[in-house]
């Protein structure tokens, strides 16, 4: 059961406001329903209000760290697929995140088409899992 792109629900959590608003707009242009949060706690609240298919999560954030958010999400909303965004060139955080149950990771800066493709895969998994 595949969903159309305009049915995809994405939550974007990153502390860089400029990045968040711009990326959210670009995803919206592509018809993806995108909500945003600028820190981990807010992100978890938004997630509790309405669960998205996919959570785009920055690994390095002040306050609650990305991997902590990931753990909380996986505990409370195991159906939500998480794609980690990392500024570290290292794949270390990414691989660790995958071990914690993340769907995949992307290194900043990334190509939007690659991201959309990855979101598509994640949504398919999320929808299939329900």
């Amino acid at each position: 059961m595949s969903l159309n792109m305009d049915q995809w629900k994405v939550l974007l959590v990153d502390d860089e406001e400029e990045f968040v608003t711009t990326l959210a707009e670009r995803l919206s242009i592509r018809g993806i329903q995108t909500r945003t949060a600028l820190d981990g706690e807010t992100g978890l609240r938004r997630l509790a209000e309405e669960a998205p298919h996919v959570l785009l999560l920055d690994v390095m954030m002040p306050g609650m760290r990305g991997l902590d958010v990931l753990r909380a999400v996986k505990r409370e909303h195991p159906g939500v697929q998480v794609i980690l965004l990392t500024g570290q060139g290292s794949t270390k955080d990414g691989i660790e995140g995958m071990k914690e149950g993340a769907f995949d990771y992307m290194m900043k800066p990334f190509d939007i088409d690659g991201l959309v493709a990855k979101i598509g895969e994640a949504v398919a998994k999320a929808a299939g899992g329900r």
Partner: protein
Amino acid sequence: MPFRQYISRHFDELLGKVEAAASPTRYAVLRRKLVLIMVAVAVLPLSIMSVINFEQYQNSLSRELQSPMRVLLNKTRSAFEFFLAERTATVSFVAAAYSFEDLADEHEINRIFQVVKQKFEGFVDLGLIAANGTQVSYAGPYKLKGKDYSEQSWFNEVIFKGRYVSDVFLGFRHFPHLVIAVQHLTEDGSYWVLRATIDTRQFDRLIASAGLEPDMDMFLVNRNGVLQTTSLNYGKVLERLPFEMPGATFETNVRTFTDPEGRDLFMAYTYFPETEYALMAVKPRTSALKTWYTMRTDLVAIFLLGVLFILVAAYKLMGVLIRRLQESDERRELALRQMEHTQKLSSIGRLAAGVAHEVNNPLAIINEKAGLMKDLMGMKADLPDKERYTGLIDAIIRSVERCRGITHRMLGFARQMDVKIENIDVNEVLKETVSFLEKEATYRNIELAMNLADPLPFIASDRGQLQQVFLNIVNNAFAAVADQEGRISVTTWEKGPDTVGISIQDNGCGMNDDTLKHIFEPFFTTKKGSGTGLGLSITYGIVKRLGGDIAVQSKPGQGTMFTIFLPRTAPDGASKS
């Protein structure tokens, strides 16, 4: 205190406190000083011992040589004393046994004299002297009857002391003799004197019968140093000794002595308590000390040999020690410099990671903003100059791509600072390393060929360290090749079930055998002024630490090939941290 300063300065040097003096000459100086100290410490007790031994041996040898002389002298003195005592007793006996009247009778005194002369050797004459000093009667070969002795000093002495033994003298008899005179007191208080003359040639017989060694000279003298018997060395009877008499003592003394003719002698002497005589014996030291001189030569030879031995041992030992010290100093310095180098690299790595991370976030923003612009433009079909803007935006996105490549490489470099053993694809590490230098290769038009075996088994090793190894060698290859015609080829292959081979070959300037011999030694560099001489030594160290092996082949003008073999499993000693 200058001495203290001197000592402390030198010890500072010994203990290496003076780091500024860390030149090769310092070790030579250090060696010299240590050898000197060691030799001094060893030779001083040896010398002291030798001197003490020398003295003690000399003393005991002297005593050994002296004691026979002493014994001989004592024996001879006893013989003399006995001889004199016997004659004196005889005269006393005659004086006591006969009355003045008996002795005054010429026949009677002659008879007594004949008896005495028969029984005791040496009696020359016998005379009776009245209290007034006049010779009353006389038995002997001379006509002395009626001679007046009252004015002579010996007569006064015999009156005073009761008996008298004279020095040897020639007198009017013209042969050496001495006089024994005894005073006899009668019951009525009057007195007379009995006088006998003794031929002292008897003394020579006494000395001759003492059993002297051939080179020994024994003689009798009086207290004034006048010879009473003939001396072999110092003259005849009644001549004066050519040297001062030693101080009067009744014990037998032996001492060393140099006579006026320059002979080295032992002199033994003893004074007679009853009479004015002293008995003296001399013996040349040279003959006595012949054994001593041989002994001394041996001693000196042994001493010199010992010193030589100590010197050689100290020198060799110190040489070894100093060489060890020098080596350990060098190793320490190398380790320090390596650590410094590693720390420098590590902080550069951390800095690079920080920068890369910080830059990635704004890069992502630029990327998204440009992307959004492109999205928005895509939705407006009638935008003027749309083509141009799209081109500009694409340029921005391409630049972001480039920056991304740079930051990711920097982060890759930073990662190598975390020392850890992991499963590594050597091909990937090589590609990553070479990618740092691709730009330079393009500029300089150097051909960079990668002949990587695929598939190549993963190895357990340290990624960062390997990267450093490859970077060092590839860097050297870049330095060696010429622009335009330079060619560097990197090859990997599976050398065996447990080993992976990597070779990096260039067609650069190459090296001669001398350079090749020293190439892995620390601080050896051909890049005068710019190189630390550490690169290849660190490379070598790393490869060895990772359980691998590195070899190099080179020909001047033809190029160089480094070959590295790495084990597939990490050595036990490698840290897993």
